């Protein structure tokens, strides 16, 4: 038993030291990953706000296009009406 005691002590020391090294390593890795996640989250927020702004602009442009299109339709109808009164009347392409 007395012969085994130093060996057990050495083994226990090695194990405990090894455990400490592993924890530090993990902490370092976690810190690195955490920084990356933070950076990605910040980027995601920026992208999200850009996308939302783009969507709002697209929506506004779409509404504007619809209004323009309807105005154009009305103008076209007026021009067609004037042409029908002024010019020689057309024959449909049957």
């Amino acid at each position, binding site marked *: 038993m007395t012969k085994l005691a130093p060996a057990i002590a050495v083994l226990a020391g090695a194990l405990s030291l090894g455990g400490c090294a592993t924890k530090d390593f993990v902490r370092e890795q976690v810190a690195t990953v955490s920084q990356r996640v933070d950076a990605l989250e910040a980027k995601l927020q920026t992208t999200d706000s850009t996308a939302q702004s783009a*969507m709002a602009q*697209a*929506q506004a*442009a*779409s509404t504007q*296009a*619809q209004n323009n*299109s*309807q105005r154009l*339709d*009305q103008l*076209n*109808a007026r021009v*067609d*009406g004037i*042409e*029908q*009164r002024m010019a*020689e*009347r*057309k*024959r*449909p*392409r*049957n």
Partner: protein
Amino acid sequence: MIIVLMALAGLALTAPVPAPAEAGARPAEHARSGITPSAATRRVADWIAASGDNASLPYAIIDKKGASLFLFDAKGKPLGKVPVLIGIAEGDDATPGIGTKDLAEIGPAEKTTPAGRFLARYGLAAGQQKVLWVDYATSVALHPIPPGASKKERRRQRMLSPTPADNRITFGCINVPQVFYSQSMRPLFQKKGGYVYVLPDTKPLEAVFPRLVVDTAVSGGV
């Protein structure tokens, strides 16, 4: 467990049933008359209903490939579907200046029914007749089979045939059945007109209706 199942069954029974406007556009209903809306027709119909592109006017969707017309009221409620006759030539554009040509001057390749979105309105044509102009600039109108059409063209038979393959015969105008025209189209379009959406033969749908892409993206469909 049994109680949960009974509760779920109860919920299913009280779940909202699609409104007639939605249900009407489903293939099953169209299949009754032998005309089924294509995927493109359904897509355009859904877009119009969702975006209000028809500006509170009645509208018709013409599927050239299926040689069929789908009519909707101002609120998007489907009112009917009929076979149509269209331009003999395949193509989605109109030759520049075709609107000023006589029928005899129009070449075979020019006899297309142009694709696009048109505000159709009644207006005057030669001979003091009133017609539903789909695109006045290119002289495309929507009307029943003209009485003066050549017998050789067999327009009536083509319209009645079950296949859309023989429905390309006109100079570019859109011919619809007489009863449908007088009972459905004319009453609906004669006051303020309405929109006519002509689906393309060859062009991509998005090229003919660019707002289809924008509105779909904005509503989260892409």
